């Protein structure tokens, strides 16, 4: 009897699982998902988003059709507002963004949505590499020279972007003498400015670094790479990137030049931004209120994508580094962390931005 019961229970369980699967399959069968990207077509966010778009459908039960739409503007804020205010929570609008989490930390008045209210599915991380022209100031041949030259120009995109804030804090911590020039629209334009010697220093995430900086600046011998930013785990240990062997981390450089580890509010602020952008430069989410079955199917699809060899091969081919996917729980934790920044650090950021 016991055996009969357990068999029946097992059978019921299987049936339930099957039903749930069927429900998910039904949910997306014959539907069309719109993947939204908060930067314009052709940029790094767009390229990654479209790569994911190409591979995601096969992991979603029902194999929905996927189309991609760009909602660029205001450093990613336009698209974020769109996801919170316009996109319907019907499981058919999915964001693959470079989420401007820093705008939330800074309480940007333009940002009218709360990132922690979205339902997060996954994220993709990227280390970032900094570089400088060899003819900057009186000449740079190694990282030590960065502190010897005066008035080199560091190129950024927006005063409130994490890209700009991070390199300004990094240079300030080292005590470098530089002039901050911002406003370039995208990393490709930044690289063009450095090629023209309009500016001399900047940083780029690994895909952009491999594709634009290395062939045009490093390999021809116009510039050298200085350091890359690593994520720091909860124990304070650096997570080194095996694909950037030969380039020191920022902490390596700091210790070498200053003889000690950095500390203080400026470093805390630096580390906050750094961890957010290294571990989750891109984030994927759906609007608040999206049906559970859709969220479940999409989260499962991202999990499958993280293990998908075809995707990894395609991704590595295009991005020049393997995908570094974090799943829903970790992504949500990162977003929540961005919502709980101490007032001291927020004040520090605001002061830094105001001092442009």
């Amino acid at each position, binding site marked *: 009897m016991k055996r009969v019961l357990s068999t029946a229970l097992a059978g019921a369980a299987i049936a339930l699982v099957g039903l749930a699967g069927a429900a998910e399959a039904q949910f997306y069968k014959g539907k069309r998902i719109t993947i939204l990207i908060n930067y314009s*077509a*052709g940029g790094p966010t767009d390229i990654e988003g479209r*790569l994911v778009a190409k591979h995601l459908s096969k992991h979603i039960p029902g194999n929905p059709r996927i189309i*991609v739409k760009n909602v660029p503007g*205001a450093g990613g804020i336009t698209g974020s507002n769109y996801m919170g205010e316009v996109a319907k929570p019907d499981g058919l609008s999915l964001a693959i963004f470079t989420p401007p989490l820093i705008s939330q930390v800074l309480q940007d008045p*333009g940002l009218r949505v709360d990132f922690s209210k979205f339902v997060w599915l996954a994220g993709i991380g990227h280390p970032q590499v900094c570089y400088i022209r060899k003819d900057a100031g009186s000449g740079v041949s190694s990282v030590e020279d960065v502190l010897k030259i005066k008035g080199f120009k560091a190129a950024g995109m927006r005063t409130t972007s994490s890209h700009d804030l991070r390199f300004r804090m990094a240079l300030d911590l080292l005590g470098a003498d530089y002039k901050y020039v911002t406003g370039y629209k995208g990393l490709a334009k930044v*690289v063009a400015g450095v090629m023209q010697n309009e500016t001399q220093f900047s940083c780029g995430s690994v895909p952009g670094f491999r594709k634009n900086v290395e062939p*045009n600046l490093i390999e021809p011998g116009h510039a050298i790479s200085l350091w890359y930013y690593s994520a720091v785990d909860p124990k304070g240990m650096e997570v080194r990137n095996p694909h950037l062997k030969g380039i020191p981390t920022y902490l390596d450089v700091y210790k070498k030049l200053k003889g000690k580890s950095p500390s203080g509010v400026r470093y805390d602020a630096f580390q906050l931004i750094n961890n957010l952008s290294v571990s989750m430069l891109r984030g994927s989410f759906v609007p608040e209120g999206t049906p559970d079955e859709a969220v479940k199917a999409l989260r499962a699809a991202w999990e499958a994508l993280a293990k998908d060899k075809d995707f990894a091969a395609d991704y590595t081919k295009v991005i020049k580094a393997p995908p570094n996917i974090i799943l829903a729980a970790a992504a949500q934790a990162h977003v929540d962390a961005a919502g709980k920044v101490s007032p001291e650090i927020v004040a520090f950021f605001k002061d830094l931005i105001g001092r442009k």
Partner: protein
Amino acid sequence: MFDAALSGLVSVIAWPAIGYLFLGVFIGLYFGAVPGLSGLVGMAILLPFTFAMEPVPALAFLLGMFAVTTTSDTIASVLLGIPGTAASQATILDGYPMAMKGEASRAFGAAFTVSAVGGLLGAVVLGLSIPIVKPLILSFTQAEFFMLGLLGLAMVGSLSGDSMLRGLTAALIGLGLSYVGYAENGAVPRYWLGTTYLLEGLPLIPVVLGLFALPEVIDLAVRNSSISRVPEDRVAGGMMTGIRDAWRNWWLVLRSTAIGAYVGMLPGLGGSIVDWVAYGHVVQSSKDKEGFGKGDVRGVIAPETANNAMKGGALIPTVAFGIPGSASMAILLGALMIQNMTPGPEMLTTKLDITFSLMWTLVIANVAGALLLMLLARQVARVTFVRGHFVVPAITLFVFMGAWLANSNLGDWITLLIFGLVGYVMKQGGVPRPPMVLGFVIGPIMENALFITTSAHDGLSWLGRPICLIIGALILLSILFAVRRQRKKKADDPRIVADLGRTDPTMSLVAVGLLLAVAVYGLAPTFAWPADVGRTPMITMIPAICLSAVALWQGAREVRRIRAEGGDIFPVRAEIAPVAHLYLWWIGVFALAVVAGQLVALPVFVALYLLVWGGYAWWIALIYAAAGWAFLYVMFDRIVAVLWYPSLLFH
């Protein structure tokens, strides 16, 4: 290099690359011909199809499509006076008057011939200039870009229409319109009137269609005239005349090719100003200038050559440095990367054959596209001789869908209708519209360039850079030329404004007054904004206020003079009621779309317009409306996968 050129050619003419190339050409002709669709939309739609393809076929497909959109966009520019793409605005100045004179076929013959020649030679220029490309591009920093933007505005302001004052004012207000929405350098929204819709800025295509297309539709509807004011049997020159025109002006074609290819190389700016630079060149270098703006074929030849030649040039910064010159080139860049090709020096060395295959694709696509269009053009040009009431429904359908395509937002229809009124007033009042659109397009580029330049250089030292000095001199020269030209003209003709001979003095006051009001409204909030956000609008609006105030004073003097002579100061009075009536119909289309969707609203408009305005038989209206519906369904729903408005009834 020769080997690479040859192997590039072989890879393009091999199967399946050549098949994809021709498929791309067919699609590109369609995307160029329909206002609102463009090479950019085509690129975005086709890109995902290329993921699984080999590099050469994939790029041949995309580039074949992209190459010919500036060939077929001539159709809308000439027939309807609508710029098919930003690069064919200058074509309107003489192309549309040619259609009004019944010479649409001739304009097509000339335009398609020079598009093919320009595209072909532009690609050759691309091939030949590979060695000198790098220093050339690297010498144009943000400072030079700002100056180039100014040059573009000065050229268009002083060339379009006969009143430089009004042209420059329109250009400045165009810049002002581009500031709507989030400021790039400070996340402060400007001029957004408290509506979310405007936070993202005004959309380009509805603005352009409103300014250019709706006023022409109003003309056709209110006067029921055909586009050609001359009956078909009295037209002399056909397509062959146009082709002969093109060959007779071979020297101009060569010069315009050079302008197109080299200006096209400048990322971001090239595509928007190249037609104006070429048009300015032909006007300034011609001895007999009187015919320009009234249907001189050379005014079609120069911009049409340049805008196809530009595509070769635009490829260079994209391929060689990974700096895309336009959104379309950004997508091509994405395609290159997805094909595992790294833009950069290696595209000019080890992967030179791929770069050459791009060049050959441009050559083949340009020639094939022009030949195909010539086969069709005779039939297409006939539209110009059809009664106005019969073409109004079709054009309305195209214009409304064009405005809808980019964002699928009903706000775009409101923008369209508002700018339609603005365009009508400007047209009747003799205020040139092209400068406004150019200002609108290059405004963000100029503001950004100025912002970077002022922080990367000390003070105004950047003005002393050699290329900045040269461009500065060109700006002064083009303004001086224009002033002198206008002085000369004034001596013959005491009237200040003469826009195709029909400017309404009262409407002129209304139009200039509107510009002045916008400028004052635009200046007011700038003082309260942070410096980085408010500075550019401020230095745009102050001269705009000055220029429009002077223009208003001139206009008032003109009205007084005409009244003193006993002339009519408000000849379009009779048109106002029918225009308002037509607008009510369009608002009806809007309302019906909200209730029942566009697939119902637009065909219903088609049928009712033909019955009520046109007085056609019910069966003609029914067939026309059904054809309109089928066209919407096949071309937009099936092919472009447009997102329709979720109406109340058929959500």
